[in-house]
């Protein structure tokens, strides 16, 4: 199995290597062409080193995200400092903060507006499971109910180091993806079917008008 290299953290020191290895196995089930694979490697290298985050923050974790961008933690070292305000330019959405029921369709829409390939990192307890607000009537119990999540970063809010570590974990995932093969992530989208039906309906109504 290919072990993706991340500068200054050896493979063994990453947590949760089992999940990662099972993901790699799933991706490479059918084998890959060697030429395609080396092209993949080139693009994956580019992609993993250029994950532009969308400026998206709902609550406390957003302030920590600002701290990550600031001088002490300096996300720019990894090349992630190009935070884009328009979802069309962004590669990764860091869901930092609680997502409530009113926000859920907006978040989903933001995710849909992003151009493929796109990734999601759930930052903090709230976006992983509802966190301290799990008992609330208006909070979504984890953003994975709405959009497929690649990396979870626990904490309330996570320390800036944890943000960076989460980004590195995402880099590892990106580095093993098959660009010319399949990435089988779209099927994980829980609202895909419903959403497609609805957009067809809208299309039909527009054509009528």
């Amino acid at each position, binding site marked *: 199995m290919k072990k993706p290299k991340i500068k200054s953290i050896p493979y063994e020191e990453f947590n949760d290597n089992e999940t990662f290895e099972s993901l790699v196995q799933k991706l490479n089930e059918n084998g890959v062409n060697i030429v395609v694979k080396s092209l993949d490697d080139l*693009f994956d*290298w*580019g992609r993993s*080193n*250029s994950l532009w985050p969308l400026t998206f923050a709902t609550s406390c974790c957003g302030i920590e995200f600002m701290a990550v961008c600031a001088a002490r933690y300096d996300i720019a*070292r990894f090349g992630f400092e190009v935070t884009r305000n*328009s979802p069309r*330019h962004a590669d990764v959405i860091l869901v930092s903060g609680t997502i409530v029921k009113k926000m859920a369709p907006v978040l989903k829409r933001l995710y849909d*507006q992003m151009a493929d*390939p796109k990734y999601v990192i759930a930052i903090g307890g709230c976006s992983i499971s509802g966190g301290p607000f799990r008992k609330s009537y208006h909070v979504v119990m984890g953003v994975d109910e709405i959009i497929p999540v690649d990396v979870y970063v626990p904490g309330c809010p996570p320390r800036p180091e944890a943000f960076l570590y989460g980004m590195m974990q995402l880099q590892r995932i990106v580095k093993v993806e098959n660009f010319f093969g399949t990435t089988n992530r779209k099927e994980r989208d829980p609202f895909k079917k419903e959403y497609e039906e609805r957009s067809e309906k809208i299309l039909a109504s527009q054509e009528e008008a």
Partner: protein
Amino acid sequence: MFDFSVISQWLHNLLLSIVPEWAAILIESVLVALVIITLYAVFAIVLIYMERKICGFFQCRLGPNRVGKWGLLQVFADVFKMLQKEIIKMRQTDRFLHDLAPFFVVTASMLTFACLPWNKGAHMIDFNIGIFFILAVSSVGVVGILLAGWGSNSKYPLIGAMRSGAQIISYELSIGLTMLTMICLTGTMQISEIVEQQAAEGWNIFRGHVPALIAFVIYLIAGNAECNRGPFDLPEAESELTAGYHTEYSGMHFGYFYLAEYLNLFIAAGIASTIFLGGWAPLHIAGLDGFNGVMDAIPGIVWFLGKTFFVVFLFMWERWTLPRLRIDNILSLEWKYLMPISMANLVLMALVVAFKLYL
């Protein structure tokens, strides 16, 4: 001083000896086009890396340092990613205009880019109304921006595009007037001649002393505004309009805007170094023959790039220090201050030339 026309002449003769003249010119054109595109890409990458590093140092940060030594490969990674990002097709937009817009912007900046004098004898486009040509093609870019705003059928891009239109058209006036001031001094619009003259008689900024200096400062301000860069980055105005006129563009289409933004910066700096700082002309001080000899030994391309990147650095310094202006402030700055000053400056320069007061 090395004359690049030796090489081009040799190539031309070589081709003529093999193929008929029309074919030779065709091959040369293709070669030149390839060179332009390559240079364009290379300079974009250099500039983006430079901006990210310089911005880092201004802000007590390190900037990219993980990808490759000192982060040198960072921008290449960005390019690879950008190349295979999805280009989103949107409904309810004017698809044709929407897709056309980035090409307008890129083409305009490429055409202007081709006018720069790289070295003695190394010009891609050089004819007797060079400056006029630069002014004309560089304003095609604004059409692209307006199309982008209109074609997106979205409110933020529309506001951004309208702002951009108002801003660029206004500042074009100042740029035109400052250039006119300098043409008044040089007496020619041909870029190669302007530089030749400066190589012979000294840089324009020294020759034209006071009016040239005023023109240079005005050009720096207006040039920054022409490139839509901070503090004049209103068409993009991240905090107001999310991403301005290119909000709805993804993938390489957005990449073109991004490239053009940086290249416009380079072009603005390049033109400044051409008409004010002598292009590839080395620094000469009258009377110091030894010094002049050393300066002559440095190749012209180094002089040109050195001056250009110095001006680029000035632009970046400006961007990372100042807050963004408001649209009414921008317009009043242009119409109430810069334009009247540059008009008066033109008259001043005319007087200087008429009475032969230049050095």
